[in-house]
């Protein structure tokens, strides 16, 4: 069926995971776009479930269905039940009912969060090949479809399993913010009949008179991206501050422990010289309780998010530079 076609995945190391490529049906793409367009205008994320099957080392996504929004007054709404019903009904009409992942929309690329990590972890734990598809509607509206697929790296899976988020744990696993998620290349495939449909549509629809991709205005998008980046940086610096105080407290405590031990030894030596029994060794650890180590997972997530923002900004600016030079050429001919 589909041949491998390389798409520029940003700096992904050779994937040794069970899924090397994702093949999406055109139908799924359209459904995701429609779901966001109709229900997601309030910059809320919209989510849904992906259905499909695994073929060799390819994950084929053949259908999807959306999840209703969470509203506060819908307490008796049972997510699991909705899912079960939907999948049962779809099975009746021969749609693949295997759960292979989930999709989510994102606002300017800010999707690296605790919630996403937890959800993806529970999915990947249950179904090894599952992925999360991130759909960026704002970038898509700028001219070309922005759909990315991510999985958690095996290292991150290990850590989440053990729930060991202390600095020592993370150091042991040598995990950095770049190795949290791995991006899987996506390929879109359409059946022959759908191609016939597309041909029909192209003949009957009017030619688009909007070419968003050649739009020159960039300040709005840049402003928002930079704003988000600044917020994240603030979070990061707070986090770093906390970690620094922790380190300082720890070293102060070490010093105090040393001083105490020294004093004890001195006293004991004095007592021995005077012939008295030495004082009992007291339990040092009870006296000097070590300060609480801050959880490092948040730092990792923030770093990952900042990295993502920077990547997006760089892509955007490089595109805009190209467009500006084209505009210059156009003016050059005129003047």
């Amino acid at each position, binding site marked *: 069926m589909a041949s491998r076609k390389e798409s520029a995945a940003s700096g992904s190391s050779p994937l040794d995971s069970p899924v090397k490529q994702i093949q999406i049906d055109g139908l799924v793409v359209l459904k995701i776009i429609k779901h966001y367009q109709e229900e997601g205008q309030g910059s809320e994320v919209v989510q849904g479930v992906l259905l499909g099957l695994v073929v060799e080392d390819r994950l084929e996504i053949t259908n999807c269905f959306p999840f209703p929004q969470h509203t506060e007054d819908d307490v008796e709404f049972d997510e699991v039940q909705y899912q079960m019903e939907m999948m049962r009904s779809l099975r009746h009409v021969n749609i693949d009912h295997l759960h292979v992942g989930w999709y989510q929309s994102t606002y300017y690329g800010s999707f690296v969060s605790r919630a996403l990590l937890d959800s993806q972890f529970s999915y990947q734990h249950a179904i090894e090949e599952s992925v999360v598809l991130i759909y960026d509607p704002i970038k898509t509206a700028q001219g070309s479809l922005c759909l990315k697929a991510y999985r958690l790296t095996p290292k991150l899976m290990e850590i989440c399993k053990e729930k060991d988020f202390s600095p020592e744990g993370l150091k042991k696993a040598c995990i950095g913010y770049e190795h949290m998620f791995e991006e899987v290349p996506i390929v879109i495939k359409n059946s022959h009949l759908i191609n016939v449909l597309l041909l029909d549509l192209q003949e009957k629809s009017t030619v688009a008179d909007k070419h968003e991709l*050649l739009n020159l205005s960039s300040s709005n998008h840049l402003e928002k991206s930079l704003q988000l980046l600044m917020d994240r940086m603030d979070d990061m610096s707070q986090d770093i501050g906390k970690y620094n105080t922790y380190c300082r407290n720890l070293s102060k405590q070490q010093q105090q422990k040393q001083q105490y031990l020294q004093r004890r030894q001195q006293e004991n030596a004095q007592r021995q010289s005077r012939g008295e029994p030495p004082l009992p060794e007291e339990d040092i650890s009870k006296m000097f309780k070590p300060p609480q180590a801050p959880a490092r997972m948040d730092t990792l997530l923030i770093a990952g998010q900042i990295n993502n923002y*920077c990547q997006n900004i*760089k892509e955007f600016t490089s595109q805009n530079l190209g467009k500006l030079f084209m505009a210059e050429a156009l*003016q050059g001919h005129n003047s």
Partner: protein
Amino acid sequence: MAVHGPVVKIHPVVLASIVDSYERRNEGASRVIGTLLGTTDKHSVEVTNCFSVPHNESEDEVAVDMEFAKNMYELHKKVSPSEVIVGWYATGYDITEHSVLIHEYYSREAPNPIHLTVDTALQSNKMNIRAYVSSQMGVPGKTVGVMFTPLTVKYIYYDTERIGVELLQRTRESPSRTNGLTTDLAQVAGAAGRVQEMLSTVLTYIEDVLSGKLVADNSVGRYLMDLVNKVPKITAEDFESMLNSNINDLLMVTYLANLAQAQIALNEKLVVL
């Protein structure tokens, strides 16, 4: 041919869904039916979603799983509460007698339902997509029949949908029917290429007119004037300063982004020490 009744506006996701359910139909079934969801207003019906309904059809009778249809509609309503049942679809070229029965069922669910047919068997080498509305006919008081009157069908897209469909169109050209997603400058280059194609078509037309091969059309000439005038006339210095300030902005932002990335990388290394 005078067309009475509302205009039917269809989104491409509905058609793709119909084709997909046709491809997945049970053995022996020659056609697939399902419900159409959407919104209506005075002069048009906008179809935005659909789902297929299992049914059995033989020579004399037809059975539709109505329970299933109701269930699915409830589930869909939870996601998009504004969508209502606006009609039903069937694949295949003709309208059969069974369609009348099914249409009657749907008229209980929705006022004046639309019946959409999609010819997936490609009988006329094309996928004929038509919509009908039923109307009474016959002599009043005697046997009354039902006639399906055709309606105009239009395709409408959201902007993002159009961009998605453009990407999907590209799978037609590749022999293995696949297409990767392009990035960065490749996209801009693609868009520029398309504009260039359009410009060259216009140029060949102009040259034909100039060399006398074609008769000059005044309205086209006016459009061309508009086109040329659209390039803004700015003095060279103004344009230079605008261009430079924009480029400076973009370069500064790129520099900041790189700086931020270097910063977090450093932080990472320091912590691990």
